[in-house]
């Protein structure tokens, strides 16, 4: 096991990565800072449980995921609903004609598996995620990144399943469009 100071330094080195990861899901800089701080403190306290594991980053990300879910639960209970105010619909409608046909047919994506090998691609994906309205992004990340069932998400955020599906649909369509423009269509 490394010396305590050494362990602390290793944790600190991961702070920028953790902040980016938390911001992507919480969409609130202050909340992300707090959550990362909580995760780092928990990691320091739990150093013994890390001993012998191969990857500090993976272990730390696991701790942070739990803290992020806690933070989202707290946010959802707050009476101030700024982050939860509803956002503008409409963008999806622009993709289709009045009769519901594509205005522009989706193009084929060349070598998507190859994209998954490139750090640059994930950067582009993160930038697309950052453009989503915050509630939409949160629901989408809870579902697709953290793997929660829609039922659980609805319950935690006090929204109806139908609303949940609408948000997820919007997120997927918007991200598909964004990746088309910023990555696959280039």
């Amino acid at each position: 096991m490394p010396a305590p100071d050494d362990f602390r330094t290793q944790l600190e080195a991961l702070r920028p990565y953790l902040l980016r990861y938390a911001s992507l899901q919480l969409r609130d800089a202050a909340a992300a800072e707090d959550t990362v701080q909580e995760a780092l403190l928990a990691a320091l306290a739990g150093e013994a449980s890390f001993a012998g594991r191969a990857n500090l980053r993976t272990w730390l990300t696991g701790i942070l995921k739990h803290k992020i879910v806690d933070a989202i639960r707290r946010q959802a209970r707050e009476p101030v609903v700024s982050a939860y105010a509803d956002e503008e619909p409409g963008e999806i409608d622009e993709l289709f004609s009045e009769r519901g046909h594509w205005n522009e047919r989706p193009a084929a994506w060349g070598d998507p598996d190859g994209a998954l090998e490139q750090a640059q691609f994930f950067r582009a994906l993160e930038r697309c995620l950052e453009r989503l309205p915050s509630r939409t992004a949160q629901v989408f990340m809870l579902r697709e990144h953290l793997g929660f069932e829609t039922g659980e998400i609805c319950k935690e955020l006090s929204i109806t399943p139908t609303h949940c599906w609408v948000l997820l649909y919007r997120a997927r369509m918007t991200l598909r469009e964004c990746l088309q423009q910023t990555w696959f269509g280039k």
Partner: protein
Amino acid sequence: MKLLSCKETTRLVSQGLDRELAFAERVALRVHFAYCLGCRRASRQMKFLRQAVRELPART
């Protein structure tokens, strides 16, 4: 049977990633996919998106 529009199709594809579709819904999707290349692509791309987002964040 009512034919789906592309908008309805993409909505159903998305819901299929979140809930179990009814038999009639799956049939309606198949019928639409049979003649609509755009929706076949959109469907594949939404599934790809799921895979990509699972693998976030970027390794830098």
